[in-house]
C-alpha cells in the first residue's frame, strides 16, 4: 500500500481523463478527413455534371458536341467487359480457392501458390496492362478486342477473388463439413452440396467487389489500347470497345470545357454503377452473414 499513493493517483486521473476525452475528438477529426474529401469530391462532380445527366446521355454515343455526347458505347463496353471478366475470374478464382483450401496439402508448393497470389494482388495494374498487351493483344492476336480486355482484367482481379473465396470457404463452419462427411458423403459431394452453397454469399460479395475494381480500372486498358471514339456497341468478343473510365478520360482531355462537365456526368454514372454493385454486395453480405 505504499507505492500507489491515492492522492497522487487521483490527481493524475483528472489529467488522464482529460486526455482521454480530447483524444476522441482528434481521432474523430482524422476520420472525418476522409469523409470530407469524399464529400467535396462528390459535390464537385455532381454540381458539375448533373446538368448533362438525362435520358439522352444514356442512349447517345460519343459526339463532338458536348450536348449530344452520350455514354452508351462505354456502358455497353463495360458490361461486355464484365460479362467476360466476371465468369472467367470467378470460375478460376473459386477453383483455385477450393483447391487451396480443401485439397492442397500444406506443403511448400501450396505455400508458394499462396504467396504468389498475395504478390499478384499487389502488382500494379499497369503491369497487367503490359501483360495483356504482349500476351493477349500481340501474341495471341486478339487485337484490341473485348476479349483481350476482359481476359486482362480477369487476371488483374483474379487474386482478389481467390482471397475472398478462400475466406468465404474458410468461414464455412467446420462442423458442417464434418456433418456431411459423417453421413458418408465424398469430398466433392461435400464441397458441392454443403461448402459451396454456404460460401456462395461470401464468394459473390468478393466477386462483385473485385468486378467493381475492374470496372473502374483505366490504366491496363490504355495499355492494350481500348479505343477512343467509339460509336457502337460491341457485337461479339472480337469487337473493339471502350469502357466508362476510358471514355471519361477521353472527355477530360478534350479542349472544350463543356466536355469536362460531360466527363463529370460520366463519372456520376460510373459512381452510381459502382454504388449499385457495392450495394448488391453489401446486401448479399448482410442478408447471409448471420446464418450459422
Amino acid at each position: 500500500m505504499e507505492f500507489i499513493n491515492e492522492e497522487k493517483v487521483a490527481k493524475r486521473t483528472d489529467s488522464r481523463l482529460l486526455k482521454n476525452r480530447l483524444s476522441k475528438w482528434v481521432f474523430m477529426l482524422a476520420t472525418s478527413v476522409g469523409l470530407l474529401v469524399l464529400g467535396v469530391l462528390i459535390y464537385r462532380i455532381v454540381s458539375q455534371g448533373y446538368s448533362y445527366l438525362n435520358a439522352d446521355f444514356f442512349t447517345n454515343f460519343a459526339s463532338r458536341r458536348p450536348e449530344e455526347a452520350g455514354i452508351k458505347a462505354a456502358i455497353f463496353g463495360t458490361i461486355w467487359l464484365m460479362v467476360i471478366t466476371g465468369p472467367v475470374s470467378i470460375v478460376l478464382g473459386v477453383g483455385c480457392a477450393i483447391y487451396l483450401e480443401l485439397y492442397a496439402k500444406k506443403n511448400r508448393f501450396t505455400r508458394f501458390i499462396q504467396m504468389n497470389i498475395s504478390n499478384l494482388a499487389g502488382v500494379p495494374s499497369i503491369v497487367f496492362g503490359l501483360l495483356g498487351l504482349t500476351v493477349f493483344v500481340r501474341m495471341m492476336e486478339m487485337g484490341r478486342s473485348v476479349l483481350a480486355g476482359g481476359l486482362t482484367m480477369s487476371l488483374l482481379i483474379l487474386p482478389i477473388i481467390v482471397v475472398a473465396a478462400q475466406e468465404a470457404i474458410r468461414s464455412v463452419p467446420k462442423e458442417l463439413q464434418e456433418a456431411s462427411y459423417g453421413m458418408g458423403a465424398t469430398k466433392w459431394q461435400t464441397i458441392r452440396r454443403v461448402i459451396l452453397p454456404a460460401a456462395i454469399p461470401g464468394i459473390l460479395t468478393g466477386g462483385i467487389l473485385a468486378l467493381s475494381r475492374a470496372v473502374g480500372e483505366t490504366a491496363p486498358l490504355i495499355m492494350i489500347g481500348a479505343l477512343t471514339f467509339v460509336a457502337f456497341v460491341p457485337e461479339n468478343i472480337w469487337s473493339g470497345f471502350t469502357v466508362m473510365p476510358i471514355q471519361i478520360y477521353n472527355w477530360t482531355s478534350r479542349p472544350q470545357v463543356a466536355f469536362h462537365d460531360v466527363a463529370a456526368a460520366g463519372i456520376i454514372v460510373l459512381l452510381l454503377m459502382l454504388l449499385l454493385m457495392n450495394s448488391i454486395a453489401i446486401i448479399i453480405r448482410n442478408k447471409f452473414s448471420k446464418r450459422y
Partner: protein
Amino acid sequence: GCGNGDGSTSSNAEGNENNSSKVEETSNEKLTGSVGIDGSSTVFPIIEAVSEEFAAVQPDVKAPVGVSGTGGGFKRFIAGETDISNASRPIKDEEAQLVEEAGIDYTEFEIAYDGLSVVVNKDNDFVDQLTVDELKKMWLESGNVKTWADVRDGWPEEPISFFSPGTDSGTYDYWNEVILEDEQMRKDATLSEDDNVLVQGVMGDKGGIGFFGFSYYYENKDNLKVVPIVNGKGEAIVPDHDTIMGGEYEPLSRPLYMYVSNKALAEKEQVYEYVKFALENAGTLSEEVGYVSLKDEEYKAALEKLEEVSK
C-alpha cells in the same frame, strides 16, 4: 506527299481478285463491317466528327477512331492494323519506306488546314509577340533560356515552363522541322501526347508556354493568351481563320492529312464510302471543330483521286 507508286496497281488488283465476290455482295445501301482509324490527335476532332456523322448515314459500320499521334498512327498503319491513318504532317521518308516494305499502298488526302498556335498564360502581360528566332532560342537545349529575361531584354526574370506535344505527334515533328530545324529540343519541356495536358499546363503555370493545334487554342481562347508570331514579311500575326486560310500565318500553318490504304479502299466498300464521306464533309466539319477548310476545288480534286485509286 507520295505513295501512289507503281506497285500500287498490281497489289491492288490482286486484292480485288481475291475478294471480289465479297465486295459485290455488299449492298450499296446498307453497309456493315468496320473501318480502322488511328493517328494524329490534331486531326482527331475532325475525324471524330466525320465518324459521328457517318454513323448517322451508315449505322452498321463501325468506325472507331484512335488517338495515337501521327507517328503512332503510322506505326499501326504499317502493322496493317488500320485502314486510315491521320496525320498532322506529311509521311516521313522512313515511314513511307516501311509502308512499302509491308506491302501496303496508300493514298494521301489533305483534309484541312491548321495553324499551330503558340500560347502563354493568361496572366502573362508582357509577351506581345515572338519571332521564329526567339522561339528557336527558347526551345533549344542550346539556347540556355531560363527566364523570360533571357528571351528579350526588359521581360521579367521569371522562370519559363515549356509544354510540348509528345514525340509521336506530328505537331512535334512539324515544330522540330520548322522552328528547331532538327536540333535538340530542350530537355526540361513537359511532353505529352494529350494536348489537353498542355492546355492545362499553360493555364496553370504563370510562366508557361506551349504550342498545339489551333482547335485546342480556339476551344480555350478565354483561358489562354495566344502569341502573335512574326512571319516572313515581318508582320506579327495572330492565328485565326482568315490568317491561316490566307497564308499570312506562317511558318506555323500546315495542312492536315488522311492516309488511306488502297487495298482497303478497293476491298472494303465501307472504307471507300467512309473516305468519300469524309472528303465530302471535311470542309464543314473542320470549320465546325475549329480548323480551317480547304478550298472546294481541292476537295473535288481529292474525290477524283479517290475514285481513281479505288477502281
